[in-house]
């Protein structure tokens, strides 16, 4: 998909002789555009849930929220968290689980390989109150966790084994990388088999959104207001159609 997006962007820019964007610039814009759209999934999903609650959304093929769920689930990961000290564990990161997390969806607590309960996130302002409550203090059946820095702290502290804590989370999409072979006296040729090649991870129906987003960044970059405005207008029209 990345080559198709790049060709479309270049085609629109070159059509009016606005200019040319280099592969490295394109990769930067592509990464930013992908993050924008990825972030927007969650807001769109929330909006659709509100529509469902207001009974202005359908089921079956009209169940658009389901589509968003599926797209978001493409980025779902489940990994054992690396222990830092006792009941503290590192949050998912490139160095521990191999990917950065966008949000933690579920934290599962086990002991001796037996799943005991799903931990609930508690704010740092509430955790002391929760721990001092007879009725609701975290225990093996109803554990809790807090986040601080890059660490997650599990309560009760009896969960302190190296493989006791597993997290299901949504990771960030990998940064797209349009790779190429240098061609003398000509345009760089697309090389899909390069080791560092990375396509967009968004679903194919987001291709137009990617194009418009990248056009906006490219238009700003080459100081062509019209290109940026064109991208913004097109994106706005697309959003209106979706709603």
């Amino acid at each position, binding site marked *: 998909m990345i080559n198709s997006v790049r060709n479309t962007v270049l085609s629109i820019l070159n059509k009016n002789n606005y200019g040319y964007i280099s592969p490295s610039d394109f990769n930067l814009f592509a990464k930013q555009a992908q993050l924008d759209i990825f972030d927007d999934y969650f807001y769109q999903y929330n909006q659709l849930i509100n529509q469902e609650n207001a009974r202005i959304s359908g089921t079956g093929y009209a169940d658009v929220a389901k589509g968003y769920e599926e797209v978001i689930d493409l980025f779902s990961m489940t990994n054992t968290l690396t222990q830092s000290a006792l009941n503290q564990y590192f949050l998912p990161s490139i160095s521990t689980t191999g990917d950065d997390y966008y949000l933690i969806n579920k934290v599962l607590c086990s002991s001796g390989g037996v799943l005991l309960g799903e931990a*609930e996130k508690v704010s740092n302002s509430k955790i002391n109150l929760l721990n001092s409550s007879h009725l609701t203090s975290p225990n093996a059946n109803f554990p809790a966790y807090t986040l601080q820095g890059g660490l997650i702290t599990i309560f009760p502290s009896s969960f302190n084994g190296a493989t006791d804590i597993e997290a299901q989370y949504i990771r960030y999409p990998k940064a797209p990388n349009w790779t190429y072979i240098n061609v003398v006296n000509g345009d760089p040729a697309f090389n899909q088999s390069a080791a560092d090649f990375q396509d967009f991870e968004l679903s194919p129906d987001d291709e137009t959104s990617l194009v418009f987003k990248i056009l906006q960044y490219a238009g700003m970059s080459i100081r062509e207001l019209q290109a940026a405005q064109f991208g913004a207008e097109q994106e706005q029209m697309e959003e209106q159609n979706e709603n």
Partner: protein
Amino acid sequence: MAYLSQYQYYDNAGASPNNANWGSYQYVSLKDVVTNFELMYYGNHSLINNEPRYKILFHTKRGIQELNYDAFKEIKALELKVYDSLTFTLPDDYVNWVRVSLYKDGYLRPLTENIQVNSAEAYLQSSTGTLSFNADGTVVTAPSTLDTQRVSGEQKSIYLNKNNAYNNQVGISADNPDGRKDYNIGARYGLNTETANFNPTFRIDKKAGVINFDSTMANEQCVLEYISDGMEGGDDANISVNKLFEEYLYAYVTYAMLNGKFGVQEYIINRARKNKSSLLRNAKIRISNIHPGRLLMNLRGENKWIK
């Protein structure tokens, strides 16, 4: 949670104790209640969302506690021997008592709660009545006469038991030089029925966590029937609720959470309140086990001849 096989139920799958699962089918565990609530009554399309799980857990436990106080009829019983100190320490999960009995000669005799105080704190006093104080400013205490005489058997009782002032024989007899009846027979006119009981008496000191008996209870077996709050010593894994109350519990948690949330319309709260109230009534009727056979046994008494 999966259903138990018959082998697991009857024999705990060979593990010890083998009776661990007997009767368990009557109950649904706390974890199941919370999980089912989260699945069925909580979420994006439900009345309740965006609330932490600990609130659901809190209201579920509170609901179970309330049910234990009056609806469940799950009465625990503890038998202990009362020694010379004449005290019976309340069980660790005690909330309120139902009945205190003396088990003697093969009979369970329900005891009467003494209407008079039978234990007190006392301050050490000088001959002029002044008090003494410890270095930390607290008053020096001493065993009360009320307690020491109760334990020694010197305290008299207004009840018709062995500690009664008239040897349990209240009434005038013309042919007795002491003017007292010798036998516990015949009509007793003007008897105070409130204190007309032969058995030992007791009084519960809630703050001290003990039952204080009179001296006639020394070295006797006492059976305390009491209710708890169902919290099983804080072990959530053992907390359960009778299935007859399961639906009520979901309704109660729904009501409690809506009632405590800002901005919920009053008609929604009222609907939830009525729902939980009617479900509680239904569950109470179900658990009361009013069977025609039992009614029949009681109604047979209406044809009994009374002299």
